[in-house]
């Protein structure tokens, strides 16, 4: 039998859990799950060196360890702090943490455009979730927000720096997954930006993964931009034989059409296995894939509203009925509705219009309204 590893006992929000040595507080909290797990915007389990930057995962350490039970003087980034035996951590039970997290959310949002209605990430955006759960309802920021030009990083990826929260995840992905990193951080402070310096295309077999790791809508899939809202799509687990990657992906379908392909993500929104660009961008037909079944989506996610376990798609009969035509709308609005008459010029109607106006012929309408005017006088 293998030698048993020493387990560390750590108490997070009054729940004690035993974890292996070297586990971070965040990982220990995720083992407990639920609200106890601090939010993480920049930490990514599979990316070495990530974390510690966004400061949303700050927790209070009320007792360092059994050996040294002194509390830590400052809030610590739980994603980069290893647990000690007997450590007592306060996350949602600490007012200090809630206050600090509130502040961090406010800081993250002051230069964010809040353009969720037109952002492709909406519905699966970590910043959206974070601000709903930990933020305030209003902002105290009264200045123009920082903006950048949009950049196309090659044929597949668009960078919209205005939305970026500088989590550095995409930099780590390029560093650790691809052979040559061609983008990085330029400038400092609040004008720091992700850039390729001189507009270069990011051309690499695995560079598409930067889209998946981006917690906000700063890096988007150009083959999917403005095609659909994610909550109208139905995620399906699928796989194919791929010589470059594992080939296990999530297809995002609407009807038969595959709108986009992403890597499979776990419950913390982290990619389980990286996929290559070919799988992600080029295989957009259901026939390219062996479909395994619907992806399990958290009930709390807006995407779950499109969940459809066990339902069968009805047969499409309309093209047959219409003689091969496949119209977007079923009815011809002018022939069905009494109200919509192209010959009635709505802007020329003198007052509130009723059904009576529409039933008359156009040249009679004016006389009718004149009559009404005289009557009122």
């Amino acid at each position, binding site marked *: 039998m293998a030698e048993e590893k020493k387990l560390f006992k750590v108490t997070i929000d009054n729940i004690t859990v035993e974890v292996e040595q070297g586990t971070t507080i965040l990982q220990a909290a995720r083992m407990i799950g639920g609200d106890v797990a601090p939010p993480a915007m920049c930490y990514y389990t599979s990316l070495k060196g990530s974390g*510690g930057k966004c*400061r949303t995962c700050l927790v209070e350490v009320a007792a360092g360890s059994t050996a040294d039970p002194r509390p830590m003087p400052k809030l610590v980034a739980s994603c980069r702090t290893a647990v000690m035996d007997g450590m007592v951590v306060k996350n949602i039970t600490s007012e200090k943490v809630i206050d*600090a997290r509130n*502040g961090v959310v406010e*800081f993250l949002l*002051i*230069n964010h455009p809040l353009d969720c209605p037109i952002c492709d990430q909406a519905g699966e955006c970590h910043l959206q979730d974070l601000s709903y759960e930990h933020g305030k309802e209003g902002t105290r920021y009264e200045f123009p927000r920082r903006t950048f030009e949009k950049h196309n990083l090659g044929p597949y990826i668009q960078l919209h720096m205005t939305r970026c929260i500088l989590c550095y995840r995409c930099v780590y992905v390029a560093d650790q997954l691809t052979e040559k990193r061609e983008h990085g951080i330029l400038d*400092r*402070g609040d004008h*720091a930006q992700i850039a390729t310096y001189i507009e270069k295309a990011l051309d690499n077999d695995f560079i598409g993964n930067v889209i998946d790791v981006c917690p906000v809508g700063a890096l988007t899939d150009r083959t999917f931009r403005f095609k659909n809202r994610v909550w109208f799509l139905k995620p399906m687990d699928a796989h194919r034989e791929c010589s470059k990657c594992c080939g296990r992906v999530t297809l995002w379908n609407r009807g038969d059409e595959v709108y986009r392909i992403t890597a499979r993500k776990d419950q913390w929104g982290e990619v389980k296995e990286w996929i290559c660009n070919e799988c992600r961008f080029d295989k957009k037909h259901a026939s390219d894939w062996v479909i395994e079944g619907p992806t399990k989506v958290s009930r709390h996610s807006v995407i779950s509203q499109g969940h459809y376990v066990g339902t069968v798609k009805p047969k499409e009969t309309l093209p047959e009925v219409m003689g091969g035509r496949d119209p977007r709308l079923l009815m011809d609005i002018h022939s069905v509705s009494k109200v919509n008459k192209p010959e009635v010029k709505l802007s020329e109607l003198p007052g509130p219009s009723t059904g009576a106006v529409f039933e008359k012929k156009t040249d009679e309408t004016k006389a009718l309204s004149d009559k009404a005017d005289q009557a009122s006088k």
Partner: protein
Amino acid sequence: MAVGSPTSCQITGTAKIKQAIYSNIADQDMGVKLLLKDAQVEGIRYYDAYRKQGGYTAAEKALKMAPEAIVEEVKKSGLRGRGGAGFPTGMKWSFIAKPEGVPRHLVCNADESEPGTFKDRYLMEFIPHLLIEGLIISSFALGSNATYIYIRGEYAWIPDILEQAIDEAKAHGFLGKNILGTGFDCEIYVQRGAGAYICGEETALIESLEGKRGNPRIKPPFPAVKGVWDRPTVVNNVETLAAVVPIINMGGEEYARIGVGRSTGTKLISACGNINKPGVYEIDMTISVEEFIYSDEYCGGIANGKKLKACIPGGSSVPILPANLLLKTAKGETRMMNYESLSDGGFQTGSMMGSGGFIVLDEDQCVVRHTLTLARFYRHESCGQCSPCREGTGWMEKILKNIEYGRGKSSDIDLLWDIQRKIEGNTICPLGDAAAWPVAAAIRHFRDEFEWHVANPVESQQRNYGLAHYADPLAVAV
């Protein structure tokens, strides 16, 4: 209290303290000079003159000692880091990990970028051999065969001076292979920075030294365990390393007799602002702040006979103090120029020794404008890695700009207070704190001036507020 030149009785008072401490030191009046004693000697920049003044005797002495004995000597001296935090140097040296077969490094932090601090520049420019000698001794004590001086890019002419000093030391056998026949090899390399304040933070400095973007690392691991190229590293300030030379020369215990309490030895203070004699002064930490500002030996009083309004005693990032709290602590004791006395009262009524950048503001200075200047500096120098500092510094600058230019609202002052409270302590490195403290202290001590700016948008563009009314300081954020 009346603010003016000190009475003779006050000066005799400090002289008496000195007498009690230095019964064995003959020259009591001038204070002790250890680092700058030869600064005026002609040609001290070059090896011959430096050697003639007794230079490199400490290196000769130290290389005959055991490395542990040197660390012990530094521990006994009570020398505290001169870069700002004031951490005991001997303790820092003893923390360095010593794994088998892994090289260790000493890095000299010469990225002196704090507004108001220019003591290291003076030291490196005029007595470079003092630093080189200190580096040789410290490298030997720590077992560093490759030692680096990371110097800020703006000091464009100083690397040449240092490199010349290194060449001279090498020619005389104090650097290179088998130094003085002890079998110890040491090379010193000068690395120029590219002009970033953040690279004065030790982990950012290490990153920059490795050729990467100067972003601070997340601690732990500390540099003493994993520093330059993941090897155990000690990063020390220029002045700290230079102070090792007199410690070895006179012995740690003797060095510890200079100064008071835990503030031992001498400290370089770079004084600037509205004073008659700006410059770098070496003090022995037994004089009062009042004496330092008004005596002719040091700053020589406020320029043009104006009154003292406020002062930043330790470089731009430490809290500003109004005149009443600067000269006397909240308890009514005379405030002295040392680590303990300057931080007496915490941030509520005290400040910090910091890096010794002594900035004096006279009655004509506007605290709001001054705070805006600092906020602009920190906004510009924030590395942009962690969100509170990246976004918060810019926000504070914008609000301060509004207040300064008569567009402020009274709620802006509370908002500023709240922003600084949310930055402080929540960032990766101390730059966030350094950006928050000046704003916090300005509002704490000069809130009436901020309110006057908000209430009189037109008048505030035409004249300054003048002397503060010294309202009771606001409570420190818990």
